[in-house]
């Protein structure tokens, strides 16, 4: 189980590096799709069927949206002659990555090892969801009863994102039509 997860994660890391270093954008999008569907398999193995169901559809929608954006633009990756500025950027990013990894190794000490999680806070949720709400799916009981305000905030962010997409894309479209006539 744990070894299988390690294999899938290593494949996901390789696919992520391939997505970042791909020569044209279509192969980058396909490699990103590999990372997303690997995440779906990880969710299935970790006993989270809801997340797997959401993620497998969302990944497809994301791929379609990115492909619709780059549909008739130049699909080529920008050629990169490595200049002085690039050397500074690369070295800075490597230093930052090494620093992050060092502090993550320090911070991970407080976590339980994999598979030995103790239900501290959600013990109450697991015990009482069934009596208090009657929802057999514990995730939905937590989502819509104990943490309803969180979900409301999520709906607000979703609404704001959709409205800002409309504002960014639609107004100029109307103006463009008017000037054409």
């Amino acid at each position, binding site marked *: 189980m744990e070894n299988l997860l390690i294999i899938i994660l290593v494949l996901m890391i390789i696919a992520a590096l391939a997505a970042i270093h791909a020569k044209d954008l279509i192969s980058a999008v396909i490699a990103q799709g590999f990372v997303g569907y690997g995440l779906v398999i990880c969710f299935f193995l970790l006993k989270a*069927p*809801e997340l797997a*169901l*959401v993620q497998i*559809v*969302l990944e*497809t*929608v994301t791929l*379609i*949206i990115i492909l*619709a*954006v780059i*549909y*008739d633009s130049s699909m080529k990756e920008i050629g990169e002659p490595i200049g002085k500025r690039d050397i500074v950027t690369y070295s800075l990013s490597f230093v930052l990555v090494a620093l992050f990894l060092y502090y993550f190794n320090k911070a991970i000490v407080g976590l339980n090892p994999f598979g030995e999680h103790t239900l501290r806070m959600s013990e109450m949720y697991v015990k009482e969801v*069934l*009596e*208090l*709400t*009657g*929802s*057999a*799916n514990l*995730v*939905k*009981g937590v*989502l*819509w*009863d104990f943490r*309803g*305000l969180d*979900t*409301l905030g999520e*709906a607000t962010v*979703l*609404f704001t*994102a*959709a*409205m800002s*997409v*409309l504002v960014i*894309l*639609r107004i100029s*479209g109307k103006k*463009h*039509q008017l000037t054409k006539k």
Partner: protein
Amino acid sequence: MEGMSIIVKKIVQLISALIFVFGMYSAIHGHINPGGGFAGGVLLSGAFILLIIAYGLDYFKLKQQTEATSIFESLSILIALLIAFSGLFAGSLYFFNNYLPAGTPGSLISGGLIPIYNVLIGVKVAATLSTIFFALIIYKEEIRR
């Protein structure tokens, strides 16, 4: 964007209806099965996106559809808010009060208000993703002309 060939159109006609029905099932049965409002909503918007890709843009009047989806989006979250507020007037006084009886867990009518919230958030997620996709496609089409 133009439509695809007749084979693709026919198959999409059959499949998108099935995807739509599965999305509705997933949203309604969210409190007893894996699925629920989020997965159901994304499936519903996926059915629409599949139809648009197969049939092309000229087949649909997308501008009116975008207005309709943004109305659905606002209306569903408004109804959810009103139901959440109605908990203040029924029983004990707090927000998101689940005042309907819990029922027997595992049957379809159980969980109090949770199935209603699931259906409403399903409509909202479907409308949001469809709005975003329609806006992108209309913009691409307009700068092309």
